[in-house]
């Protein structure tokens, strides 16, 4: 299904050679890429169904260069799309025909490890995992752990407010970032927050986090690191019905236990994962929970007992407890490989990402099942059960005419269903272009206008990553007007301006 992108600016396209030359004056040598072949890897992010070669790719190495590039583009009315590692699943880093693709991949240096303040100051191109690795020697780690952590950049994590299995207990990216260096579209370099636990004034860091590259380019980040828990153990619990698994999740939380991770897989996902990694998952269950407890061993042992009792009380038919690190890893192996495993049983799949209130889990799964029948497509469910974040994987074959369209329509219906159940369109992958046109399903025009006004405060000309997140582009001037609708005015006799 074609997604409408902002109209290309022919004047800019006509000046491409001059723009390339100007960019080379800022970033010399191999930092500017413009041949079709070399730009190929930048044509899409991990939402590979959409591809678009950029006008030119530029790979700066310093904040100063980023600033000069942005100022140049600002002065010349050229759009810019920032890019980290390109693992976004929502098309956030998809290039535009008439835009400069600004790759942050060369910002690979960890600038400072400050164990006393429990922070790491790093450049945005460093991978999520590399931060944990850099502090592992001292027993620390960086808590948010998206499954893509080997590849995704911390800058991309900020832009997407990424999370992973640990988020239930340790929060998302937003709860673990203290400050950044931000370059505005005008080229202005700002420092927001720092090593102090809180910043002064409005929580600008909080708004930059999750802004999908639309507000500014992050060139340095200060993240919190945590001391590793003494130990972790996991339970593998199978249930004959999905409802029972849902009930178990609710009762664990209700009992005041916040596991380090709590993940769920449905039958198709279990079978696919088992066939792929042979984790010895039970195949006769409808739902499987992996529940990890972390902390001092004495605490973990006690909580394991409590969780086991709750699981039995909910009618679990299998309950295995990891006795060694190897066994714990094995429990997780299937879950972690669930996406590629599903990739083996279906030529293509679409990974959705919506959140629902935990209690609505059984209803959501029933709806997804019904929708699968309606569209005639298979679906495997993997999700972060602890926080209601669903990842239905819709199975289809792109070579069969019309199937991709069907899969997308199916996916959109699932997300609308999430909103109807009291949830939201995306829990961790972002809106990007993928869910952009569904935004009005969750937000009214007034809500969206308020968000876009905020965008204008950062990027008044709307040049940074346009076409993402918001279904319609507005001019900032038009958004800035105060409307006092006479029909709704409470004091109609008062003078109006």
């Amino acid at each position, binding site marked *: 299904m074609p997604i409408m992108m902002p109209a290309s600016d022919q004047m800019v396209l006509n000046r491409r050679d001059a723009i390339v030359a100007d960019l080379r004056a800022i970033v010399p040598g191999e930092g500017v890429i413009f041949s079709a072949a070399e730009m190929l890897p930048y044509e899409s992010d991990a939402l590979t169904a959409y591809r678009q070669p950029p006008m030119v790719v530029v790979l700066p190495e310093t904040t100063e260069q980023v600033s000069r590039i942005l100022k140049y583009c600002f002065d010349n009315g050229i759009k810019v799309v920032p890019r980290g590692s390109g693992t976004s699943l929502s098309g956030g880093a998809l290039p535009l025909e008439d835009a400069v693709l600004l790759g942050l991949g060369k910002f690979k240096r960890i600038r400072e490890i400050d164990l006393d303040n429990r922070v790491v100051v790093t450049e945005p191109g460093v991978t999520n995992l590399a931060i944990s690795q850099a502090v592992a020697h001292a027993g620390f780690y960086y808590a948010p752990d998206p499954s893509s952590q080997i590849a995704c950049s911390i800058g991309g994590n900020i832009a997407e407010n990424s999370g992973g299995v640990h988020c239930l207990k340790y929060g998302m990216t937003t709860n673990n970032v203290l400050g950044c260096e931000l370059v505005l579209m005008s080229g202005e370099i700002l420092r927001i927050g720092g090593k102090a636990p809180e910043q002064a004034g*409005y*929580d600008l860091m*909080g708004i930059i986090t999750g802004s999908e590259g639309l507000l500014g380019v992050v060139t340095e980040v200060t993240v919190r690191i945590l*001391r590793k828990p003494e130990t972790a153990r996991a339970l593998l619990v199978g249930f004959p019905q999905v409802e029972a698994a849902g009930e178990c999740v609710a009762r664990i939380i209700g*009992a*005041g236990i916040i596991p380090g991770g709590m993940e769920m897989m449905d039958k198709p996902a279990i079978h696919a994962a088992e066939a792929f990694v042979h984790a010895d998952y039970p195949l006769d269950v409808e739902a499987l929970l992996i529940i990890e407890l972390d902390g001092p061993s004495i605490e973990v042992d006690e909580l394991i007992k409590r969780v086991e009792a709750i699981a039995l009380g909910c009618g679990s038919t299998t309950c295995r407890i990891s006795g060694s690190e190897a066994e714990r890893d094995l429990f997780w192996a299937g879950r972690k490989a669930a996406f590629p495993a599903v990739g083996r049983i279906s030529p293509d799949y679409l990974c959705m990402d919506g*959140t629902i209130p*935990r209690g609505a889990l059984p209803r959501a799964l029933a709806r997804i099942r019904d929708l699968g029948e309606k569209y005639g497509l298979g679906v495997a469910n993997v999700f972060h059960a602890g926080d209601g974040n669903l990842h239905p994987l819709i199975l289809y074959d792109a070579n069969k005419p019309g199937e991709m369209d069907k899969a997308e329509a199916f996916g959109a219906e699932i997300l609308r269903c999430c909103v109807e159940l009291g949830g939201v369109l*995306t829990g961790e992958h972002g809106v990007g272009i993928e869910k952009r046109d569904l935004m009005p399903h969750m937000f009214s025009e007034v809500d969206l206008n308020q968000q876009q006004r*905020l965008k204008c405060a950062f990027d008044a000309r709307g040049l940074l990553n346009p076409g993402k997140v918001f279904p319609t582009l507005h001019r900032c001037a038009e958004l800035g007007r105060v409307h006092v609708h006479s029909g709704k005015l409470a004091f109609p006799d008062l003078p109006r301006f």
Partner: protein
Amino acid sequence: MHIRDAADVEAAVRAAIAREQPIEIIGHSSKRSIGHAMATNAVLDVSALNAVTCYEPNELIITVQAGAPLDDVLSLIDSKSQEFAFEPMDTALLLGARSGRGTVGGMIGAGLAGPRRIKAGGARDHLLGAHAVSGFGDSFKAGGRVVKNVTGYDLCKLLAGSWGTLAVMTEVTLKVMPKAETGRTLVLRGLDDVTANRAMTAALGSPYDVSGAAHAPHPALRAAARGALARLASRGHGATLLRLEGIVASVAHRATALAADLASFGMAELIEDAESAALWRDIRDVTPFAADGALGAWPVWRIVCPPASGGAFGQALARETGGEVIYDWGGGLLWAALPPSVDAHAVLLRQRLAAIGGHATLLRADEGTRRTVDVFHQQEKGVAALAERVRLSFDPKSILNRGRLTRTSIS
């Protein structure tokens, strides 16, 4: 105008826009003495919006109207053994206000978190969603009702701690957390501020999941007229407090292990359960600096800085001004009561602070002082300009709490 629902708030804001008259937003106005006097005499009182819309303990969320009394909401969630994990502070003693007052909207508007912020985050981390009326007179929603949500910009982060200058919240959804089964405090005695800071740093860098790390030098402790800190003071020496919370067996184990880890700082004594909880309430509410206490006439600063620098900074500040300092957040939060002076020592304090990074808010001072000193920290020029553009994107006519945050904007 009596505000009964969000539509009334919308109407009131629109009327104010039409008259171009700024309005002051209040809940119970327990924090009216913080910040700059406002350039208006029109008040929008939202305290009648006080219903609990929905409380779902199993979902760990509560939705309430913004004017709901905090007292009631806290008892409601306490009845299910839940709490706001960011441990919001009660400023009544410090400000000399009536206790038992305050709304949920005011709590979010002020965004002041207590000792557990170092582990659980601040108010901003627990606000999942809000309905609010902007200075455009438009009712908009931000966020949602689920913990994991990246749909659109996270406007909730901006609302928390914005002191009513961006929008009038009408309803908020907050994350609640289960209360810990038990809590214990390790107390180290007689450390100077810098050494105490090192002890707290060691504790927070340990795997024992410390959920509170505070230090009160003896002179500051002695100012406490009553309560758990006063009881500690009566035994001489300053006290460095480290809190452990969780299930009983775990807390006992961690207390022993942490005490062993910190042996080089001295023998830790152990304070349990109710007395431990009382200690942390006192730290949270900064009772030694109570308005009716020995230091009640002194201005009080709330200083946030990189935690490991707190000890040296506070020690020097106390020495140079003759004031008293209490440390929380492992050194990241300093409460400083300083002897009265023309500018409440603002220039000195902020100059010194610039060297380590951080910010200072003049939380308590008479109106005269607040007229001449910037209560909130002045930001670097570019950031301040951005923040102002952000404010205008919510409230282009500066209708909401005009002049509360900045002296210069009083007109």
